[in-house]
């Protein structure tokens, strides 16, 4: 792993440690007594702080996950070509697009 990828992986991990802790707390709170779309959207829609939080969360995930998958694939498979870098980068872009779309669907 290059120094830049190592740094990006660890910096995004620090953001994610905080974000995941908050997300787990939110999940455990929100699922009590069952989830309904009305309840969820009433809490989330128009909540600018949580929108900002989840935008940062999605960005950190889109950086962290592809680098992690790249490391695993390079160690566990013989795939080490430029093609691997392109595929994991495309996966990161996909996560970013789907994640931002989901955040806007729930919070805007």
């Amino acid at each position, binding site marked *: 792993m290059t120094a830049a990828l190592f740094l990006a992986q*660890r910096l995004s*991990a*620090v953001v*994610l*440690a905080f974000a*995941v*802790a908050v*997300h*787990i707390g939110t*999940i*455990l709170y929100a*699922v*009590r007594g*069952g*989830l*309904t*779309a*009305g309840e*969820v*959207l009433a809490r989330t829609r128009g909540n600018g702080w949580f929108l900002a939080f989840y935008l940062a969360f999605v960005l950190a*995930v889109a950086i962290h*996950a592809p680098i*992690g*998958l790249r490391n*695993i694939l390079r160690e566990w498979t013989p795939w080490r070509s430029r093609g691997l870098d392109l595929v994991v980068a495309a*996966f990161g872009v*996909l*996560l970013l697009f*789907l*994640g931002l*779309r*989901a*955040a*806007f*669907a*729930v919070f805007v």
Partner: protein
Amino acid sequence: MRASHTQPGFLAALLHRIAGITLALFLPIHFLALATALNGADALESFLRATSHPVVKFAEGVIVVALALHMALGLRVLAIEFLPVRERTRLAVSLCLAAALAVGLVFLLNVA
């Protein structure tokens, strides 16, 4: 089996990776599910109702455990790399597993 594969550090790395792969595969599905809200609350409600089966709830519990475990084991990695600590690996891995399973248990109790 190689001697290094019986070490708790190897188990920690393996669990960290399996949890990470699980989350990477789950995330696109999770994002697509949330995006049903783009078609209104009714669309999201239909999805939530369709996934209210106990088997799906259990699978969601597994994902929550994977999330908590990946975070806990990731904090261990950050502590080893950036803090002047000498960890007791067996204890650290046990605590990470216990914390993740406790989170999963609370989740399943809350959705039950």
